[in-house]
């Protein structure tokens, strides 16, 4: 069958930011859906958002309440959300309480009542909240066959009347196998809420949605004054492929640019790893300041330092971050709460990138980013970070991330994270002990795109930023942090043999 011959299924908006993308574009019109999950996970709020997003005077929404939350209390609470539009209540949304019918009569009477209201209102959206109570009552008094027949007739009637239907219920995943309602449903949306240590983690899953390519897996969501907001695992950037870099971006440190064979290839992810005090944030600020100086927009996501510190530091480099912020050329995000989900943090970054058209992004630091997350999300951190970096570099953003590593004096670890996944390029900063001084060296470990300097260069942190000095060619074992002079170095040549041997270990 050609595409032209296929029926086109209209997709309705969910009214939930991020959820349409997860559902593969929206809710299929005339579908019969289940919204399932435990108490307090946001089922009713989700249904209300769908209702308010779609109800019109011509095609209103019918909201049947059954033995669950009393309608008056439901309205009391739901009107607190920003999506609640009281104007729609008068002519676009009709609440009908079915409790009496469910309590006193049988399933046929329930169906008759629903049919009567649907035929009278001609609704676009029908919600039964909670359908679980209908089923409980039914199973207590009649058999499973009757229930199956009821669901079949209900689904058939509502589809025939061109209504998109949502049955809400407090189900547990184990019920999925034996419950006929899950078989009949076109869409099954499951909301989860768990407490991990001191944080609440909310996730949703589109278990099935007939006829549509959904984004599989669990997606985090948040409930705020605005209602639900979902964060797709793909951050809305799936399918973007990285294009080869056409130019290099200056780091703002000329010597470092030379070591990088011209700078950081545009669209690369570069990791700056080093222990505390080695100037990672300074290097990051120089990278951003250089971008602003060249008219490239950027974002600094700071997880450890306050925006003010970057502002002051950039001022020392002769760049006014405050003015850049006011002009919309720079955005500084201070992300410090301890209950962030990876996806919502990443969504915030993606939104900020899209909003100002950022070409440079600083993540300072990955260690702080991980710490800012709710404990339950930390285990997903590496995978989520990989998705973020792939997604953003895919649209041409150059990302400089810093990461704190503890210096070992026997080896040189690059980072606690899987470096090859996270970065195209890697700069390592470290302390070395020379002549009773703790000095700093810098080395480029890798550049995926091509050639780079192999030199281990000493550097200093000055008022004007990192100042890269000469190669420490007289020493061996610099990567261990406790180098010793080479035999031919002047330092050793001028010493008596015994002392020279001792000095070389």
């Amino acid at each position: 069958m050609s595409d032209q011959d296929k029926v086109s299924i209209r997709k309705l908006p969910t009214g939930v930011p991020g959820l349409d993308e997860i559902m593969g574009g929206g809710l299929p019109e005339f579908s019969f859906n289940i919204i399932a999950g435990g108490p307090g996970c946001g089922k009713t709020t989700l249904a209300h958002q769908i209702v308010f997003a779609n109800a019109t005077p011509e095609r209103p929404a019918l909201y049947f309440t059954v033995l669950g939350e009393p309608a008056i209390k439901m309205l009391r609470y739901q009107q607190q959300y920003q999506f609640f539009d009281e104007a729609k209540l008068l002519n676009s949304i009709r609440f009908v309480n079915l409790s009496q019918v469910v309590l006193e009569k049988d399933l046929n009477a329930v169906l008759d009542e629903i049919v009567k209201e649907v035929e009278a209102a001609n609704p676009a959206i029908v919600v039964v909240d909670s359908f679980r109570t209908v089923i409980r009552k039914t199973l207590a008094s009649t058999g499973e066959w009757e229930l199956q027949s009821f669901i079949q007739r209900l689904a058939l009637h509502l589809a025939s009347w061109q209504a998109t239907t949502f049955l809400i219920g407090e189900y547990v995943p184990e019920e999925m196998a034996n419950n006929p309602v899950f078989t009949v449903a076109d869409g099954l949306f499951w909301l989860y809420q768990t407490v991990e240590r001191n944080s609440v983690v909310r996730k949703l899953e589109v278990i099935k949605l007939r006829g549509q390519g959904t984004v599989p897996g669990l997606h985090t969501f948040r409930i705020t004054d605005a209602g639900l907001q979902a964060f797709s695992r793909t951050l809305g950037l799936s399918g973007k492929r990285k294009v080869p870099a056409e130019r290099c971006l200056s780091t703002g440190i000329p010597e470092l640019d030379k070591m990088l064979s011209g700078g950081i290839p545009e669209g690369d992810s570069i990791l700056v790893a080093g222990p505390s005090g080695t100037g990672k944030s300074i290097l990051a600020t120089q990278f951003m300041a250089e971008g602003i100086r060249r008219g490239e927009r950027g974002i600094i996501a700071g997880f450890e330092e306050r925006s003010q510190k970057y502002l002051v530091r950039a001022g020392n480099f002769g760049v006014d971050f405050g003015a850049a912020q006011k002009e919309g050329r720079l955005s500084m995000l201070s992300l410090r709460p301890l209950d962030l989900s990876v996806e919502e943090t990443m969504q915030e970054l993606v939104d900020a990138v899209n909003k100002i058209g950022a070409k440079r992004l600083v993540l300072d630091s990955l260690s702080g980013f991980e710490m800012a997350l709710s404990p339950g999300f930390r285990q997903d951190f590496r995978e989520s970070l990989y998705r973020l970096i792939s997604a953003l570099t895919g649209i041409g953003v150059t990302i400089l991330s810093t990461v704190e590593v503890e210096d070992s004096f026997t080896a040189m670890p690059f980072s606690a994270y899987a470096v090859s996944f996270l970065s195209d390029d890697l700069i390592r900063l470290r302390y070395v002990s020379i002549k009773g001084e703790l000095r700093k060296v810098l080395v480029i470990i890798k550049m995926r795109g091509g050639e780079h300097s192999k030199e281990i260069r000493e550097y200093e942190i000055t008022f004007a930023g990192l100042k890269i000095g000469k190669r420490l060619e007289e020493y061996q074992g610099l990567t261990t942090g406790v180098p010793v002079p080479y035999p031919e170095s002047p330092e050793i040549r001028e010493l008596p043999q015994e002392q020279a041997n001792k000095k070389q270990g």
Partner: protein
Amino acid sequence: MMMNAATPRMRTFARWLIAREAAAGYPPEEKAQAAFRACEKLRQHLSTFAGVAGFRSLLSRALILAKAEVPWLSAVEVKADGSLAELGSLDTQHDMDEAEKGVVILLAQLLGLLVTFIGEALTLRLVQDVWPDAPSDVMDSGKEKKQ
């Protein structure tokens, strides 16, 4: 201390509803009949939305609160379906002023409870579903707070 839900504005609104019903065919001296009819109309509309039990509990609460101010309302009862028993005969048992006071307070308490739970805007919309010409300015938000 819990605020009296039958605020002056709710009482004004209740008077308007009763007058509106009286104008629909009841003589001015039969205020209780008009109030009974107003309650019936509200019951039919709100029972669909809140359920019979939901409306019944609201009206029962309103009656209890109204009795504190008008003791003779003890003779009135809320039936299982949420309708009022005995209210219609009060016109013959009490003088016009007393009867009016009682039914106004009862209706005002009911409206006040709705406002407490769902706010003035939604209460007005529910009332306007039944009486589309119900004046919005009676419920004008914040007016009472400023007084």
